[in-house]
């Protein structure tokens, strides 16, 4: 019993020491997407920053997928426990609209480019919201099983061509992107896609085009599903985020090729939750984590393009594979011959309506 008590006391004392040791460092809770993506941020941003700033401890939270709803709930409860959140641009805009994240003064808060170009110019058009600090350009695009097709797929419309490319396709269970691709393959001029999609007839046209492959579609809800479906041979071609396909092809060595035609660019970046208890520490961290070199460094671990114009020339080789990363970037000229940019305003307006129509169509 005595020994037991002694052990317990020792454990309690150690726990208290540990606790005191922790409270001395400022803890920043950084919310991101987990997996390879958080790992790339850990390697490129968090680890070097913590090394130079021993007083800061960065804690990763992988719940970015439900961040918008959680930030809203935190605000309503009056207790914001997150310090920095990684969000896609459309969500950043919604969060900014609702006043759930702080407005950023990009030029004063962020580092200038090495040649002195102010941050707002270096990021340029990628600053789609005054609350948003762009980080990467990613794209939603297709990968296909090169061993299961008679000839390489080169056009987005090959996805809709069941005769030449039989087999199942993986598409995201959302109207976004799918409706655009359907219209392009139904002969609508790419520049007119959103004009057409804004009308009832246009939506009908897009859904009618999707009808032609509906029976062969596996609908995914998480970006990790398509790589698995491709690896299992369950689908011949499928859409997902380009970084996932890079890993499938280069790291996992699966017989899959990229189909970059009409890839849809989107942005991902940081937002600072309003009401964070460590605002000053977060802003200091952000200045470091979004400078030219850091953004270029991230591309060593994942194939997403940096959003600063000044970072592009600095993109080097993959950290472990040693292959040059530039040709795997969605923004590489060879990959970006035909692209769409996520139309934020159109989807903010029509998301609810088209989502209802899309789901009704799915149920038919």
């Amino acid at each position: 019993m005595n020994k037991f008590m002694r052990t317990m006391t020792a454990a309690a004392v150690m726990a208290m020491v540990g606790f005191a040791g922790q409270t001395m460092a400022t803890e920043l809770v950084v919310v991101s997407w987990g997996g390879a993506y958080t790992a790339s941020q850990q390697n490129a941003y968090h680890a070097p920053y913590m090394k130079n700033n021993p007083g800061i401890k960065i804690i990763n939270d992988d719940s970015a997928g439900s961040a918008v709803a959680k930030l809203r709930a935190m605000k309503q409860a009056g207790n914001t426990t997150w310090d920095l959140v990684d969000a896609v641009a459309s969500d950043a805009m919604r969060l900014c609209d609702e006043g759930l994240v702080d407005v950023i003064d990009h030029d004063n808060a962020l580092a200038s480019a090495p040649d002195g170009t102010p941050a707002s110019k270096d990021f340029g058009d990628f600053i789609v919201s005054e609350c948003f600090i762009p980080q990467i350009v990613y794209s939603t695009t297709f990968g296909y099983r090169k061993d299961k097709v008679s000839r390489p797929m080169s056009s987005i419309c090959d996805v809709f061509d069941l005769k030449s490319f039989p087999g199942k396709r993986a598409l995201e269970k959302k109207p976004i992107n799918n409706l655009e691709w359907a219209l392009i393959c139904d002969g609508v001029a790419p520049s007119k896609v959103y004009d057409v999609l804004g009308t009832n007839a246009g939506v009908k046209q897009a859904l009618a085009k999707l009808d032609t492959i509906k029976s062969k579609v596996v609908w995914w809800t998480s970006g990790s599903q398509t790589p698995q479906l491709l690896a299992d041979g369950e689908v011949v071609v499928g859409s997902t985020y380009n970084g996932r396909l890079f890993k499938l092809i280069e790291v996992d060595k699966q017989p899959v090729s990229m189909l970059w035609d009409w890839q849809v660019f989107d942005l991902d970046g940081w937002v600072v939750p309003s009401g964070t208890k460590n605002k000053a520490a977060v802003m200091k961290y952000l200045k470091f984590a979004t400078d030219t070199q850091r953004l270029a460094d991230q591309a060593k671990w994942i194939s997403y393009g940096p959003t600063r114009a000044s970072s592009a020339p600095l993109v080097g080789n993959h950290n472990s594979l040693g292959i040059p990363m530039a040709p795997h970037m969605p923004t590489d000229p060879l990959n970006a011959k035909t692209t769409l940019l996520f139309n934020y305003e159109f989807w903010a307006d029509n998301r609810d309506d088209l989502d209802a129509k899309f789901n009704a169509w799915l149920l038919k």
Partner: protein
Amino acid sequence: MEKIQENIVTADGIPLKISLARAQRRSKIVAFMMVFPLLVFIVVAFIGPIADMLLLSIDNSIVKKILPKSSEALQNWDEYSGELPGEAVFAAMVDEIKKAKAAKEHTRVGQRLNYESSGFSSLFRKAGRKVTKIKTPPFKEALIKTDKRWGEIYTWQVIKQNSSSYTEGYYLAALDFKRKFSSGNIESLESKDSIYLKLFFRTIVLSSLITFLTFVIGFPLSYMLSTVSTRISNILIIFVLLPFWTSLLVRTTSWIALLQQEGVINDFLVLVGFINEEGRLAMIHNATGTVVAMTHILLPFMILPLFSVMKTIPKSYVRAAISLGAHPWKAFWKVYFPNTGAGIGAGSILVFILAIGYYITPALVGGSSGTFISNRIAYHISSSLNWGLGSAIGVILLGIVLLFFVFYDRIVGINNMKLG
């Protein structure tokens, strides 16, 4: 007798009746204190959120809160007169959008109205950008100049009809009705546009099927468990519980590996020549996948109540029936089976209620024909942020569960339920 009793006193001179009442009160307080933490917990963690959800599904305070003067001024405007509202309404609107813009609230009005009619999100976002430049009247022309939609009667009809404190709009949407703002009438959606009624129906049908399948598989298994020796039944129970201790996601993805077209089962069937390469069966990413995976996941909830009830049924009952001349089948059906009723009831209602609210498994293996209504709730809560609609669907689902519960109570009786 009465009198004598009243006169009985305890050793310290207090009448026995009072003393007894005191002692009982003390024990009542102690008993209450014991359940008090649970009561607080239930109120805070269960009743509170449900009440909050109920309120959220009818709450419509945003427009009125952010545009108070405009919504009041709109009350005097006849929305079916065919004319735009007057200058006073426009003046109030310009003023309030300016204020809302300063407080960063104008887009919230836009988002709220966008749930009712597409386009309001950009209308208010644009107005917020441009309205600061409007300084002098006439406000009507100036506002219409920022966007021609302000000059459409329909825009103002939508705002007026959504400016009351409460709305039935979310329930209408959750039941596939739509309000036509140009006439104020409520119309039901065409069957090809209907979503939620179809999903409610599908959820109930598939949940019933899953409940039935867990019963068909679980009943003989529980019977065997209750008849073999304790040593063997303990080992078998572990096999029943083992999946319980495995992550839900792992169990679900294992089913994907088994059932998909390039999966284990299809490979085997092709190997033995039961089907050919082209005829591989589609058993996942559809309703079949949902039913198979969920039957497996929910099976323990059927087996455990059944097992605990069957263990208490004396073997002598059936023996007695047989020795009195009953056919073994008749003895089982007339004597044994009715005694398991409490377990069947408990297991069925447990599985059914759990199934009706499941959303992870249907999302992963359900494709488009095997998703449940709960997937739409999850979408509206975490993705579209239309919490009002999500709450309304949630309340209806809660109503359906309670309805089934009442049915169950009428037919079987809730007191007969035995959970183990």
